[in-house]
Each structure stands twice: as C-alpha cells, then as structure tokens.
C-alpha cells in the first residue's frame, strides 16, 4: 500500500526551518523551531508580543545577522531546499529571492518610480525600458498602478499612509521575490487602508509565498491559509488557519485564542 504524503518528495517546501535556535548574545529568542511553508500560501505568524515572531521572520532573509551578537545556535533554514547559511551564499541574491515589508512604511525620499526601481538598480539593472516595465508590473501587483500611473515622478511622500505602505510592497515585489516577508504591515494604518492591503494579500499569494506577522487575529483568519502560533520563542502549533482557530490541538493555543492567558 502506498501512503500519500502532503508534499511531493521531488519538490522541497518553499521555506523549511529545521531545529532552529536563535540567540541575541546570551539571550535565546527562538528555540527548536521546525516549520515548513508550502508554495503560494499565506502563512500568518501570531503570538503575544516578544514571543519571537519578528525574529523568526528576519531569520528567513538573514536580516538579523547585522546585529552584533545575534547568531544561530543550532539548526538550519532552507529556501527551496537550499541552505541559506552556506558560506558561499550572497546576501544580495538571497534577498532578491526573499523580499521584506516592514511595519513602518518607509519609502525613500525619492520619486515613486525611483522607489520601486530601487531593488533593480541595486542589482545592476539600468535599462530604462526594463525598469519602466518592472515598475509598472510591481505597481500593478500592489494595486497602485491605476492610482499612480500619471504621477510616477512625484515624491513618494506625497502619498497617503496606506499608499506608502503599498508602495513599499511594490518596491519589495519589483525584484520578483519568491517569498515575501511582512512584519505587521498594517499596524500603523487605518481600517480602510488595512482592508486594501488584506485584499492585496490574496493576489500576492498567486505569485509569491507570503509569511505575515500579525497581532490581529481576525486579520490572520481573513488573510492566511496557514497559521503558526509562537509562544516564548517556541512554535506551539502550526496548522491550516481554519483548523487552528476552530479546533486548536494545544491547550496553550486555545488559551491564547480565547484570551484567557
């Protein structure tokens, strides 16, 4: 008899975290994390603040290693089966494959066009035709093209807060990353701007694998296919969102979801 498996053996998961221990100096922030994220899914990371959501997210594109003392104690992270901590890995190539959107929208004080083209310019693309195409594609992906196509050369700071955050999304997807990491991208936005970004997430998942940190559990329910619950640096439960919210397997998850912590 053949046992069917979820994941075909020839296709490794998009992101695979194995036995990860991560520390800031002496302080262990993540402990024994094991997590597999499949292609084209939106995965929400939830948990009380300080539990290590951002840390885990920033491990996936190695943004944490900038900080003095921050290091991986144990374990590995693979993107499409490739170890991202191989000493030969170029951070530039890795980060073109794994894009990131931050909590605070932070467009550069440049034009809209130059903001979106930034990543490509860094990668050495200078052909204006290629850049213009990429900018259009990225702005469409961020549902900004129709609003902004006539004002691409205006200063990015002339945009509203929600538009600025969508501009940051456009900037991140302009290099066509396979993975898009988002750290509480809506926490500084008003409800309407938040709604627009949530709508966007479903579309983004058609081209990208999205991992989103959120402190808003309704948002996790609305936007994600899978949810991972972290507590005190440990991954408590990881399951399809509906299942995790309706029928949590761990007592800790249930307590957190009910708010009786």
């Amino acid at each position, binding site marked *: 008899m053949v046992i069917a498996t979820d994941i075909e053996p020839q296709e490794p998961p998009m992101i695979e975290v194995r036995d990860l221990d991560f520390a800031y100096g002496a302080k262990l922030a993540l402990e024994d994390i094991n997590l597999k994220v499949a292609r084209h899914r939106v995965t929400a990371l939830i948990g009380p603040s300080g539990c290590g959501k951002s840390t885990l997210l920033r491990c996936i594109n190695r943004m944490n290693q900038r900080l003095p003392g921050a290091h991986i104690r144990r374990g590995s992270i693979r993107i499409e089966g490739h170890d991202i901590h191989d000493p030969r890995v170029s951070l530039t190539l890795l980060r073109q494959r794994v894009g990131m959107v931050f909590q605070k929208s932070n467009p550069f004080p440049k034009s809209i066009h130059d903001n979106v083209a*930034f990543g490509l310019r860094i990668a050495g693309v200078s052909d204006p035709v290629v850049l213009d195409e990429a900018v259009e594609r990225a702005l469409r992906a961020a549902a900004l093209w129709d609003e902004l196509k006539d004002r691409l050369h205006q200063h990015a700071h002339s945009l509203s807060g929600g538009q600025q955050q969508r501009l940051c999304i456009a900037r991140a997807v302009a290099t066509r990353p396979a993975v898009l990491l988002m750290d509480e991208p809506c926490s500084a936005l008003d409800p309407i701007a938040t709604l627009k970004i949530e709508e966007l997430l479903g579309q983004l998942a058609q081209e990208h694998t999205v991992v989103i940190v959120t402190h808003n559990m309704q948002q996790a329910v609305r936007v994600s296919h899978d949810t991972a619950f972290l507590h005190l640096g440990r991954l408590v439960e990881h399951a399809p969102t509906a299942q995790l919210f309706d029928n949590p397997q761990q007592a800790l998850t249930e307590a957190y979801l009910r708010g009786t912590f």
Partner: protein
Amino acid sequence: MSDSPSQNPFIATDRGASLRRVAMAWSLRLMTGFIVLVTLAILLHIGWKGAPVLFKTQAPFVNTAFLSKLPSTLHVISDRDGRVIETDNRGAEVLKKQLGPNLREEKTISYSGGGILGPIVGTALLVLVSVSVALLLGVASAIYLSEYARPGKTVELIRLAILNLAGVPSVVFGLFGLGAFVLTAPVLTNSPLERSLLIIPLGFAKLSFQGWDTCVLSGGFTLAFVILPVIITASEQCLAAVPQGFRETSMALGATRWQAIRSAVLPFAMPGILTSSILGIARAAGETAPIMFTAALAFKDKLPWQRDLPALAADASWWAHWEQSVQRLLGLFTESVQALPYHIYTLAARIPNNEYAQRAQYGSVLVFLLLVASLSLCSMLLRRRLRRKYKW
C-alpha cells in the same frame, strides 16, 4: 470684587521676586544686545571704510582695478603746486622725470598699491583644495565611524581624538603642515632632492619623500586638517539623523552595506554635511597661521598660472606648447600664492601705518567678508536645492 491679599492665596506677597525676575530678563537682554551692537559696529566700520575703496560713484560702480590687479608698491608723489598723485613703480619714474625740480616729496608704501587679485585667487584656491580634501576625508571617516566600525572603546577614543583636534592652536597646524606636506610628502620625480627622506624607485620614476614645497596643495591639505574635526563631527550627526529604516530597507532589497549607504543614506545626509562645510569654508578662508609656512607669501607679483617658463622657439612643436600649458595649469596647485588673511595681516602689521596702507586694508577686509559671505550663500543655495529633492 477684588480680594484682599490675605484672602486670595495667589496674590504675590513677595514683591522682590518679581523685581528679580525683571532684572534677570533685562540683564540677559542687555548682554545679547551688547553682542549685537559690537558685531554691527564692526561690520558698519568695515563697510564704511572699505566701501570707498571697493565702490565708485560712477559706472561701473566697482573699483575694477582693485579687483583685477596684483598688489604692488604705491608711490605717492606731491609737487610744489600742491598736487598729489598716486601711481605705481613705472608711473613714478616717468612722473619724476617730468616734474624735475618741481618734485616736492615722494612716499612709497609697500603692498598698498594696485589691487588684490593675487590674494583673492590664492584664497579661492586654498578654500577649494582644503574643502574638497576635508569633505572627502571627513565624510569617508564619518561613514566608517558611524556605519562600519563596531561601536566600542576604540571608536570612542577615535572620536575623542578628533574632537581634540579641533582644540589644537592653528599655528601648530601650520608647523605640522610644514613638516608633513612641505618637507616630507611624497612626490613622483626623476631627480629627487638631496634632502629627500626616502626614495623608492618605481621603474618609470622615483617616489621621493621630499615634500611638496610651499604651495597651494601643501596649504590646502594643512587647512583641510584644521577643518576636518568640524566636518567629521557634523557628518556623523547628519548620518545618524537618517532613519535607520532606510538602511534596513535597502539591505532587505539586496543592497550591500556600501550600496545602502551610497544610495539610501548619503544622499539624504548630504544637505546637512554641506551646511557644516559652510563653516569649514569660512574657517579655511580665514585662517592665517596654517598657511604662513605652507602656502602663502607676503608678496608675489605673479598669479599661480603665470609661471616663469623658458620661452619657446617660434617653431616649437605643439607638444612643447601643450606641455607648457599643462605646467602653467598645474601651477594652480604647485605654486605658492598670496592669501587674503595673510595680506591683511601684512598690511596691518608689517608696514608703517598710514592712510594709504589703511585704505588697502579696509578694501581687502571688505572684499574678504563679501567673498566668504558669497561662498556661504552658494552652499546654502545648494543645500536648499538638495533638501527639496531629498526631504523626508
């Protein structure tokens, strides 16, 4: 309706307190006023005395000779009819012959005749070299200290040393420049001097540590070290003021550390850095001691590009002409110059004081002030333009 003081607890009983408050405010006001007054007095005095030298009542309203001639000795000749004529060396000879026995008196006042083109050009060149060198070195080390170096004891020590550099008397910088740039800095040459400290043969030429001699380059480098502390400190502050998010974002987009700094940090810090260089310009233009031993002469009858070179034969090749032109152009950096502050010092302290010397003095000081003010204005305008482009 009004309460008596005993009923209303808010009514002041201590009249002394309000008196003291008023006295305090007034004494601060007076001290500030005093400073404003003195500054105004200085500026008005210079303007009052300098304007007649620099400006004229008829078109073109500017004394062009004063701005376009080199300094020279002034001859003041008076004849027995009571006429007084001011002229230069050559004019004096002709005039004396003409007047013959009618000549009553001839006064010669060194450096006070002609104009001040030499010092203006010299100061402009010194400022140009020193500010370029200081910006390059200063911004580079500020980037290193605030973006690359690991924060810690060593970096703090370096910062402290740089701050201390700002307190070093400028004459010490002059001596340092003399030792380092005039007498020791390396040059490429085929025929090193005998006093060269070290000669490294390179095949095509020799690298000789014999110094650059007294020249714009030596003086400019020396001045650069005078203004470096200001520029480094200000650049570091401006870099720190750029939001951390810009660095993170650009690195998350794949930028290397240097790419992030170059495209997402430095452009936004530049307006502030330029502002600090305004201070640097004024300082570099105004210093006398650092250039006294390194670049400036009390008197020079040539502009830096008017170097003496052997006359070329009529049929000399274009190459020979070209070579001489290049040598003349290089004179901008390799020749010694006159400089405004040193010229003013010479006029004020090294020649007997009289109305003619004073006239040259005030004219020079006014030109000097206007020059520094317009340089500052330029960098302020540049800063405004950059600010508008890169505001956040």
